[in-house]
């Protein structure tokens, strides 16, 4: 039974990754999960300098999911290279570094600094709904997305995954823009912008008013977008949004994702990632499948 998938020349032992920002750099969850069992660890977004993030409350619960407005707090690329990369290198798993920035230059700065680092891929977050400048603005207009993608591709020494926002009218159009600009892969979806109001205090629950929604509640939207994107482009897609178990992960693969990532459900069940790996294997066994890649885009329609 072969669970390997290859994306932009990088081969992963299985198609299961962690979703950026929900797993730190793996350290915090290594109490629960053997990181060696994961296809890749995707790290929390890192910028060129440390970011403080948003004021609290930063998280809120919603029906079947949560909102977050962390605002990309991060220690900056220097600390990241000194602390997080060496930590992850100890494990037999691929390292994907999620990159954020306020200006194109910020992104390029981080991408350059990572050039000689032992990281396998870069995931470019142009879809964080929780910071005022930069970020999501790049991810909501096809021409801005094209522009930043091509600039990053010129500088990047590792394959580039563009992480797309679901807060758009036409995900196929955005996907094509990223592909045309040279992106090696896409990942989707980032969180959907949501809001929660405390009716007794008549106040927003999050200090930032809005937050990004994630968790099982968003899965049908994510599966739809992965499918639409897979129909529109040839580059591989990493699917995420509400994955709680192997069944959910397989749904994304069938829709056209080449790999999947587990996000908010790590908080609900810290063993989710490994359970997804094992569940996919059990499914393959049950249906006598030899290669996990046979699932990719295999929905009949």
């Amino acid at each position, binding site marked *: 039974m072969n669970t390997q998938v290859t994306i932009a020349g990088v081969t992963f032992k299985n198609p299961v990754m962690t979703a950026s920002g*929900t*797993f730190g750099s793996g350290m915090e969850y290594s*109490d629960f999960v053997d990181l060696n069992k994961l296809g890749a660890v995707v790290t929390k977004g890192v910028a060129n300098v440390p970011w403080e993030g948003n004021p*609290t409350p930063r998280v809120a*619960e919603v029906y079947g999911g949560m909102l977050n407005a962390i605002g990309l*707090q991060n*220690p*900056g690329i220097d600390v990241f290279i000194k602390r997080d990369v060496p930590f992850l290198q100890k494990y037999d798993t691929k390292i994907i570094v999620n990159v954020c920035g306020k200006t194109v230059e910020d992104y390029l700065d981080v991408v350059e600094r990572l050039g000689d680092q032992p990281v396998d891929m870069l995931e470019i977050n142009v879809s964080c709904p929780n910071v005022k400048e930069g970020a999501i603005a790049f991810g909501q207009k096809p021409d801005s997305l094209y522009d930043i993608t091509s600039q990053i591709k010129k500088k990047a020494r590792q394959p580039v995954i563009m992480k797309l926002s679901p807060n758009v009218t036409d995900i196929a159009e955005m996907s094509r823009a990223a592909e045309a600009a040279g992106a090696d892969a896409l990942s989707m979806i980032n969180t959907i912008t949501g809001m929660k109001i405390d009716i007794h205090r008549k106040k927003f629950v999050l200090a930032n008013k809005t937050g990004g929604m994630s968790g099982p509640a968003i899965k049908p939207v994510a599966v739809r977008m992965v499918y639409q994107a897979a129909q529109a482009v040839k580059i591989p897609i990493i699917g995420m949004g509400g994955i709680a178990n192997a069944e959910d992960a397989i749904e994304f693969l069938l829709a056209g994702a080449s790999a999947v990532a587990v996000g908010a459900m790590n*908080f609900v069940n810290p063993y989710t990632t490994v359970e997804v790996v094992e569940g996919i294997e059990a499914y393959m066994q049950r249906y006598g499948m030899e290669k996990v890649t046979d699932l990719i885009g295999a929905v009949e329609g």
Partner: protein
Amino acid sequence: MVQKKKIKTTIVSQKQIAEQVYDLWLETRLAKDAHPGQFVAVYPNHESTLLPRPISICEVSEDKRRLRLVYRVAGKGTAEFASYGAEDSLEILGVLGNGFPIDKAKGKRVFLMGGGIGIPPMLELAKRLDCRKQILLGYRDKDLFLQEDLARYGDVYVATEDGSVGTKGNVMDIIKAHGLAADVIMACGPMPMLRAIKKYAGENKIEAYISLEERMACGVGACLGCVCRTTKVDAHSHVHNARICTDGPVFEAGEVDI
């Protein structure tokens, strides 16, 4: 460090001990490693409320096989917990956070200050501290809870907002009313109380350890949801933010900007 786990626990008993306040004993091997000031995250079984609820450790049984949690019904999750009884099961994640620094109190005069639903963690703390304990408790009204348990481990002083029992006012008013003094403070309660303690401790050059609250998602330091402002750049984040779930919930009052 002890490894964190998410495990299924069985409810040994549950009873209501004040209006909306419940007293829950859980059978769990996590009890073995539980320190006062630490907490567990309790998962609702309902599938609409997915995030775990942080609840402080109130007491550990003598055989270290059971944990006591005392909580107030605040919303959907705690209302669900309150609906359960003996034999029902609950999943919890723990043990989480740093706990109070017990050694700092050795041989000193200590204030244990608890306000409202900040009182529960004071119980296990009082049991473990080996020193002179003055236990200052603030309640809304005469609907007291846990003060009898606490009275077994030190001198208990009560304040109520409406003046129906003890000093009228809050825990700070107890200090004035009784002319009390201490070398170390350990406290848990609402933010205005913690701010007053920080100020008092600063003015009187007393060491103070306060337990903070914030909305949490992961409980293990991964999501960066639960931060508080720190006065110095924090070692992990490299910004002025510490994670309450892992760097806290107990902080030296001078370290945090509240």
